[in-house]
Structure formats: structure tokens, C-alpha cells
């Protein structure tokens, strides 16, 4: 019997990893709760449409896969706590804030962090103009809210998304006029590596080919080795300027082109969401190929903190399929069921081989952090330009000091938009590798929450200071 507000397994995040973990764990007969701030399970990738559509077939195989995952988790007996933000994790205690209610502390036998990833923020002149949005934001508007994006949409980005995303947008009737991929075309060696890793990953290769074909049919120019340099316009986007880049994604002088557009979607890959893991004190490591700072886990997805596991993109951006299986492993880890884990591990190994083969093609070049000019606002919450940040960085390589001088990373976004860009500026000025710039101290809450929901009159005053 589980006491109210306490579970054997508390899963944070109802995306592929969280859903698979919940279903697998519930099947083991343990009490499971899944927390997600969204109104419906599925995460960003399997976000359910806001409007009921006539046939889910129209939404594609990915969507069907997502529905199956959601249904399995829902039928498993796991309890869903939706519209509920997880504000903080400490050991096996989590602070949960259901929308419109008071935040409360929940304890669990084990907490699985499966918070996913967010779009890598890239600051370039004009990135704050209305009409510029992230791939994730655009996806939400189109898929969940059925909002058309514009009349002339440019997509700029890299990685698997750079191909899939414009093609998917076309399917929803979004007029994409150009798709720009910063990375190179696959060379012979890449194709050989991909071919070798393709066994069991055929669908992923097929998907890529189909997206390419769809774009070609729709006569959407798909251009490799080009990066967005700036968005122009008065009051909103009117044009996008892009340029050729070298291997490190640094702009080749004199290669700029300008295209009229009213919307620019930016998708230079994803960054693992590690705020909660940091707060919990989990060990992290830095791997640019996996999206930057990632949570270190063992063979059962357990982190360095007892009672805390992590799965999905937080342990490395490797896509929904890998996330799902990591979720399963995390659940099976509750009983260390090696027999049932074996096929999952084999599948993961296959997928990862393929992901590794793709990486050279999708590695993020250092040039992506060098697009901001001195006047470009890098920290949107506190409206700080690159020049203002660089002035503070002169005084110290310590992010804590730079924060103190400028308030950077301390606004509403808590650094999600600026932390990486800031780290890149520190790295450049003080001659460090991006990986060696220590992150700022993590602080709760990871989402803003009304003081009225935080306030708890029953917490005893610790008493006045006595000498």
C-alpha cells in the first residue's frame, strides 16, 4: 500500500523515455507516477494534436508509435500527474507544482529523470525579432495548436531535424521556401559507416531518403553547409541572410545571400535538459556529440546520486527510439532483470552504432556560437548584449562572477537561452574549451512558480537568531 504522495517510482517527464519506463515499471507491479507540465502525455516529439484530427494515419508512423506508447503507459496503471511542473529534486524527494495548486513535496522509492531536451539557442543578429522561432516552438504551434507559421518560411539548422522538420512542415501545409543545413553532405566514408551500421536501422535511413524526396518534389531548395547569419526586418522578420560555412561552421566571407521571408525556424540540434539532474547533484560529463552536458548513468540508467536515475535525452541526445529503450532499462533496473534487459540492450547498441555514424555529419561547429555581433542581445531575460557580457567576462572566467555583474542566466529562463552562448564567450576570452567552462550553480525552482503556490504557513519559522 502506497501512502498518498509517495510512489515506488516517480517519473519526471512523459516523453518516450518516461512513458516506456512507466509502462515497464507498472508491469513489475510497483506504484508509478508520471509527472509532466504539459496537459497530455507524449512529450515534445509525440505531442498530441490540440484539435481532433480525422484519422491518425495522416500524421505518420512516428505519431502512431507515440500513440501506442501513450496508450500502453495509460493502461499500465501508472498514475499521470499532468499540468504539473517538477520544481526541484533532492535525493528521492521532488517538489511538484500542479497548475493552480500549492506546490508539494513528494517522496518516492526512486526518481527517474526523463525531462528530454530543448532547442539549442543560437544568438545571431535579429534572433529576437518576431517571426524567428525555434524548431520546437514551431512544432508546437503547428502540431498542437494548428497555427500556420507564415507565408514564406525559412528553416535553418542542422542534424536529423534539418531534413525531417521542413518536410514535416510541408505536410502540414506550411510554405517552406528554403531549408539550410550547416553540416556537410555525407562523404563516401560516411556512407560506408552508415551502411555498416544500417542493419536494424533501415527505417531511419528510409525516413531520411523520404524527407529528401518530399522536399525535392515540393521544389524546396535544400542547401548544405549554409548557416543563418542574421534576420532582417523592421518590427518583424522580412528577410533572412545566410552564408556558406567551413568545417567549423565559420562563415566564409563574401558568401552571403539574402532571401525574403516572414518566418525563420531555427533548429541547430538539441541540448539535454539537465537542470533537475544538476539540482539533484548528479554527476555530469560533457560530450558535444551528445548535445553538451549529459548525466552520467550506469548500465541500469542509475545516476551517481542514490535513488535517482535518468533516461532519454538528458543522458545524451540520441533520439526517441534510444530514449524509449533507456526508459525500459531504467524500469527493469528496479529489479535488475537482466533477462528482459538483454534484447533492449542489443537494440540500444544497434541504434547507438547508427547514431555514432551520423555524428560527424551532425556535429555542431564552433561557429554557431560566433554569430552574435557586439550589439546582439544574448541574454533575453536581462537584455544583455554580447559586448556587455564580454566586458564582465574580462574580469573573470567564473560564471558566478559574470552572473553577479550582469544578472545573466538569472532571469525567467534560468539560463536555458543563454548559458551555452555565455560559456562559449568565456571559453573564447579565457582560452578554455567549451567543455571546461564550469556551469553556474543550479538553483530551484527550475520553472517560475507563483509565490502563493510556494507559500506554506505550516512550515515552522526556524526561530529568531540567538547568539
Amino acid at each position, binding site marked *: 500500500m502506497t501512502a498518498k504522495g509517495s510512489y515506488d517510482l516517480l517519473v519526471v517527464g512523459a516523453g518516450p523515455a518516461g512513458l516506456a519506463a512507466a509502462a515497464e515499471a507498472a508491469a513489475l507491479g510497483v506504484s508509478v507516477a508520471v509527472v509532466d507540465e504539459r496537459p497530455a502525455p507524449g512529450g515534445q516529439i509525440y505531442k498530441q494534436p490540440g484539435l481532433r484530427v480525422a484519422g491518425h494515419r495522416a500524421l505518420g508512423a512516428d505519431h502512431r508509435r507515440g500513440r501506442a506508447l501513450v496508450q500502453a503507459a495509460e493502461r499500465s496503471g501508472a498514475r499521470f500527474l499532468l499540468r504539473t511542473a517538477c520544481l526541484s529534486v533532492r535525493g528521492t524527494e521532488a517538489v511538484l507544482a500542479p497548475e493552480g495548486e500549492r506546490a508539494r*513535496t513528494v517522496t518516492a522509492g526512486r526518481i527517474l529523470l526523463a525531462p528530454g531536451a530543448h532547442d539549442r539557442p543560437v544568438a545571431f543578429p535579429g534572433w529576437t525579432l518576431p517571426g524567428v522561432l525555434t524548431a520546437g516552438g514551431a512544432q508546437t504551434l503547428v502540431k498542437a495548436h494548428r497555427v500556420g507559421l507564415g507565408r514564406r518560411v525559412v528553416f535553418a539548422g542542422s542534424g536529423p531535424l534539418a531534413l525531417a522538420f521542413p518536410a514535416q512542415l510541408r505536410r502540414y501545409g506550411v510554405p517552406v521556401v528554403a531549408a539550410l543545413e550547416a553540416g556537410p553532405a555525407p562523404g563516401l566514408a560516411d556512407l560506408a559507416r552508415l551502411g555498416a551500421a544500417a542493419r536494424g536501422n533501415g527505417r531511419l535511413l528510409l525516413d531520411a531518403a523520404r524527407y529528401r524526396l518530399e522536399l525535392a518534389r515540393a521544389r524546396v531548395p535544400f542547401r548544405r553547409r549554409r548557416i543563418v547569419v542574421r534576420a532582417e526586418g523592421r518590427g518583424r522578420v522580412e528577410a533572412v541572410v545566410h552564408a556558406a560555412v567551413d568545417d567549423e561552421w565559420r562563415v566564409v566571407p563574401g558568401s552571403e545571400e539574402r532571401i525574403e521571408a516572414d518566418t525563420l525556424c531555427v533548429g541547430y540540434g538539441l541540448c539535454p535538459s539537465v537542470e533537475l539532474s544538476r539540482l539533484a547533484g548528479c554527476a555530469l560529463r560533457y560530450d558535444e556529440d551528445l548535445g553538451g552536458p549529459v548525466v552520467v548513468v550506469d548500465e541500469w540508467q542509475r545516476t551517481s546520486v542514490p535513488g535517482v536515475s535518468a533516461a532519454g535525452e538528458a543522458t545524451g541526445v540520441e533520439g526517441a527510439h534510444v530514449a524509449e529503450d533507456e526508459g525500459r532499462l531504467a524500469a527493469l533496473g528496479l529489479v535488475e532483470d537482466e533477462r528482459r534487459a538483454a534484447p533492449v540492450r542489443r537494440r540500444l547498441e544497434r541504434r547507438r552504432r547508427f547514431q555514432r555514424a551520423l555524428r560527424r555529419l551532425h556535429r555542431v561547429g564552433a561557429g554557431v556560437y560566433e554569430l552574435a555581433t557586439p550589439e546582439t542581445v544574448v541574454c533575453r531575460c536581462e537584455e544583455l548584449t554580447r559586448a556587455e557580457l564580454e566586458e564582465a567576462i574580462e574580469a573573470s572566467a567564473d560564471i558566478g562572477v559574470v552572473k553577479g555583474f550582469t544578472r545573466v542566466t538569472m532571469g525567467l529562463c534560468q539560463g536555458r537561452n543563454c548559458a551555452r552562448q555565455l560559456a562559449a564567450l568565456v571559453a573564447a576570452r579565457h582560452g578554455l574549451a567549451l567543455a571546461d567552462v564550469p556551469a553556474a550553480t543550479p538553483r530551484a525552482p527550475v520553472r*517560475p512558480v507563483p509565490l502563493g503556490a510556494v507559500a506554506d504557513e505550516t512550515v515552522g519559522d526556524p526561530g529568531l537568531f540567538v547568539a
Partner: protein
Amino acid sequence: MPSLRLPAERTRGPLPAETDVAVIGGGLAGTAVAYELAGEGLDVLLLERGELNREASGTNAGSFHFQIAIHQLTERDAGGSHARLAADVRLQLEAARLWETLEEELGGPLGVHRTGGLMVAETPEELRLLHEKHAIEEEAGLETHVLEGDELRRFAPYLADDLLGATYCPAEGHANPFLAAPLFALRAAERGATIRTGVAVTAVEPGFVVRTGAGDVRARRVVNAAGAWAAELAATSGIELPTRSEGLHVNVTEPRRKVLEPLVQHIGRRLTLKQTDSGTFVIGGGWPARPERSPARYSTIWESAAGNAAVAVRVMPSLAGVRLVRTWTGVLAFTPDLQPVVGEAESLPGYFTCLATTGFTLSPMIARMLAAHVARGEPLPPEYAPERKGSRWTATT
């Protein structure tokens, strides 16, 4: 505009073999002492183990507290406390006057605002205490007014309308804790002080030999300005300093239109509340943080956020709809009698200490007092002596 920060390069580099005065600790007290001593023409070396202004000086809420706080009042049983409280108030007043001219003197913004401060009372007992402390403050020359009922509601319509009363002190206010110590450090360096960060002092041996991770330095005199770690440092020289440290929790909200001008405190519960220039509300008051090895020295406790928010919303109900954006922790040095430590160790001549419990308000003031003493022999109040006698001045409390 020229930069008001010391470039990183100027805080690195080799240590001098010797110095006249070694100041240990790069917070507000240490940087202010270095600035004052350099201004007196002395050869000064400031050593900071981490970065400047990263502990209490840069993590506190930046409030100027001049009214007598409840923790001071409850010490009344100590005997002779009336005179002591009045002396405390006078020191605070001097500190207030110094802050008012500090921006001009240091030639840069410190975010100093004299907004006035309210200390509220919820219960009849608390209201009685307000009147009592008001009498002491008046006697010591600190202007405060007791506001009750409609008078308070008219004066501060944003406060809960069932509060019984409040004292208003026009001299209170705040400054920006991110700016003060770094500007002192810059000006100290311009006056010739050598500033080294990332240099941890492991021991101070008689002579003095200051042992550091980067080598030894001979110093004729030493100033311990290590704040929360002052007792630890003093112990390496065989000096018993009965101070302790506590981690405190602070909260900050999203920015809102300016509605709250004065600093708000509570006479009976842990609360400090103010709205900054940028519109955010900073809420603190001494709720505990958890001591920790990593990732931070003190980590935040959600219960502290919940309890602190409850007092804040009780006092200012409209805060209920304002979003909390982040919490953080700071560290605070406590002296057993809550009075500053400024002076020379009787048992070890040449070894000075400079620290205060409400250090942000007092540090520039006590740094100036100490520097005048070190350089020119100006007398210091014996009640601030590091090895003072007194029933409340023992390490065993």
C-alpha cells in the same frame, strides 16, 4: 565608460615575497580594508582563495538594516544591554552616512538607495516591542516613527491591512551587493594594493609568515577579513575567535511594476522584503540553507522557500501572484554577541580582525575604522576587540 571591474589579469601573477599588510579575504570587508590601507600609503597584499565577492558579500540581499532587530532585542537579559543597543545604533548611523557618500568617493554606481524601511508587527506583543525599540532608537539619534492602524494603511497600502503597526526608518535602504566589493578592489589596486585571487591561505604563522597554496609571503601585519571562515583562519595562528557561520536562503521573483518603495522587515518573524530597481522582489530574512560539500557550499531547502514565501505573502498579499524565479543561498558570519569584531588580537600583536554579523551594512565603516587604527593608531571601541571579555563572548555558547 571605463570598466569598473578589475581585469582578471590583474588578480593573477606571482606573489610578492613580502608585504607590509596581508589582508586575507576578498569580500566587502577585505577589499574595503585594502582600499583604506592603500589610501593610508601602506603596502598591501590582498589574498582571496576563490574569486572576489563570491561569498556573503556578493550573495546577501543588499539591505541596510539600521533599526534594532528582534534578535538584538531578545538579548536584553544580558545586562547593560540598553547602552549596548544604543551604541550599536550609533555605529549603524555612521555606516549609513558612509554609504551615502561612497558612490561619489569610489566614482562608480553601487546602487545605493535610501528608500526607508518598515518593520511590521502582527501581534500586540510585537507592537509593544516596536514601541520599546523605537524609544531606544530615538535616544541614540536614529529617526524612526511608529505607524499604527489607518496611518500605516495610508502610508503603505500594499501591506496586509490587518497588520497592527510598523516602525518606519527613513535612513534604511539598500545597495547592490554585486557592485560594492569589486569597485573597492579596483580602487584599491589603483592605489597600489596587490590583489591575488585563487590563492588560499593555509596558515598564518608568527612572524608573520603567510602560508599559501602559491608559496609563502612575509607580512609585518595581517588582517583577517575571512568572514564566515575567520575563526578557522584565526585558529591557524592559535587565536580563538568564537564566531560561527550559517547558510541563509534568499528568493527572487520575476520583475513587476514598481509598487514597493521601502525595505520591509518583520519584528517577530524572519522576513526581509524589497523591490529592486529592476522590479524583482528579493525576499529573505534568515531562513536556513543546508550545509553541503557540493555542488554548492549551502544548498537551498524548499521548506525555507515555502516558509519564507508564507511570511512575505502574509505581510504583502499581492505577492501571491508574483512568480518565484530562483532561490539562492548565502553565508553569514555570526559573532556570539552579534557585535562586530574590529581590532588587534591582544595575544598576537600585529594580527587584526575585521568582520561583522550584518556585514554588508557595516563593512565599509569598520574597514575604515580598522585602517585608521592600523595606520595612525586611532583608538577602536574596546567592545569590538577580538579577545574581548564578556559573558557572551566564549566559543562554547
